[in-house]
């Protein structure tokens, strides 16, 4: 299942964002951030403790089941009294959740997490980015491995000069996408597709901000 992968912002950054805002309501989420242990019930409880210690007042807290869902506002309505006592909502969900809450309640929000990527759990406790939703999918020619995402530079014609022993120039713990693609295409007997000179990519398959409307025919 795809997940929104987050990491906590530093204490310093949160302190700066909360400067002058003393009454705080905390919102966590029971889905992705619970899985990554960045915004589930234990993390919300720890945040509450940390805020109290630094002299803030916590008017309340809640862990909603799926923060990015349109039903979130109904759950938050039940907490409205405590929310209204707060100067700010400190939101420990991914940025989809932060924006959902912000657009529903139209209140001051501060994200407590950085949203890193949309990824999947590939091993216990390990999450990897495998598709960046580029809008012009090319993995039919790369053995089902995405170079747009897996190659640090998004190269579509083979490896750069920095590839070393099958690893990427930015990190010896990251596989070079083009070694993976080469190996996969070799296994499949389809190396010819790697030999094809690919033209410049279309970077605007769907211009940002993407939108999609089901046609009403």
């Amino acid at each position, binding site marked *: 299942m795809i997940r929104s992968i987050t990491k906590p912002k530093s204490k310093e950054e949160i302190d700066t964002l909360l400067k002058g805002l003393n009454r705080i309501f905390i919102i966590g989420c029971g889905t992705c951030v619970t899985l990554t242990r960045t915004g589930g019930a234990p993390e919300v409880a720890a945040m509450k403790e940390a805020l109290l210690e630094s002299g803030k007042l916590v008017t309340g807290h809640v862990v909603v089941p799926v923060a990015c869902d349109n039903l979130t506002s109904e759950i938050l309505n039940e907490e409205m009294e405590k929310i209204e006592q707060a100067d700010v909502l400190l939101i420990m969900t991914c940025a989809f959740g932060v924006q959902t809450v912000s657009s529903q309640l139209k209140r001051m929000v501060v994200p407590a997490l950085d949203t890193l990527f949309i990824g999947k759990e590939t091993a216990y406790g390990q999450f990897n980015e495998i598709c960046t939703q580029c809008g012009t999918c090319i993995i039919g020619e790369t053995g089902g491995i995405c170079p747009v995402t897996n190659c640090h530079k998004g190269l579509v014609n*083979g490896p*750069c000069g920095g*590839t070393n022993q099958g690893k990427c120039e930015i990190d010896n713990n990251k596989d070079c996408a*083009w*070694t993976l693609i*080469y190996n996969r295409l070799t296994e499949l007997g389809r190396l010819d597709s790697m030999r094809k*000179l690919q033209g*410049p*990519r279309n970077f605007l398959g769907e211009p940002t901000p993407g939108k999609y409307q089901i046609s009403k025919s």
Partner: protein
Amino acid sequence: MISSFKKSLDSGKFIVTCEVAPPKGINLEKTAHHIDLLKDKVDAMNLTDHQSSVMRYPSLGGALMVKEMGGEPILQMTCRDRNRLALQGDLLFAASRGINNVLCLTGDSVMLGDHKTAKGVFDLDSSQLLAAIRILEKGKDLGGNDLDGSPVFCAGAIVTPEANPIEPQLIKFEKKIEAGAEFIQTQAVYDLVRLKTFMEYARQFPVKILAGILLLTSAPMARFMNKNIAGVNVPQTLIDEISQAPKGGAIVKGIEIAGRMIRTIHTEKICDGVHIMAIGKEELVPDIMAAADLTS
């Protein structure tokens, strides 16, 4: 206009190119000194483009200096910092000022340099940049529009003959030639047996190959490269040779080793020429050439 470097490549003579790094800042004295020293000794000199993702005076500015001082520049262009509009625009500018040799590179990640949070562009890659050059020469741009006055270039690229695994690297090498590379400067090579093996394969392609010769300045520097630079393997015998040099004599030894390698490549006709990289010690290039019995 056919560049003098292109003419040298076509003449069949043994080619020597070297590298000049533009300064960090606008004090151009040292760069000018290196250009002055080398411009009549080598067939052309490469101007590095924010090498290792370290921001410097641009390669285009350095290439213009070489041109104005009467030398022959090879403009290095990476795809890291410019999208296809900026790359094409800079190519037009280069051609308009008599800079007609270009080395096309993908470019290192910005994470390796001194502006680690910058955006890496990589709108094109090295092979697509080569293809773009050939399109500009036909009077079109990458958008399919007509140019008013089209440029002529001698375009090149790089290869790492000792990459591991080598096969993906060779596929990319063949694509670069297909895209229009006329010359190739290799990553630093030290093992001439492996270079010969690579050349037996590479000879089938219509491209001139210049072996990368990187001056060894000390045993720790050699070990550092083995550990940190992709596709560079300094054999233990060379590391031993340089560590046995008398105190203060490591550089002299490095010059001797580089000279010896170039002489072998030349006399045994292993490659079409050499590309000498003396990283920061460009003033030693004439000594290396002398040690290789090469006269300008």
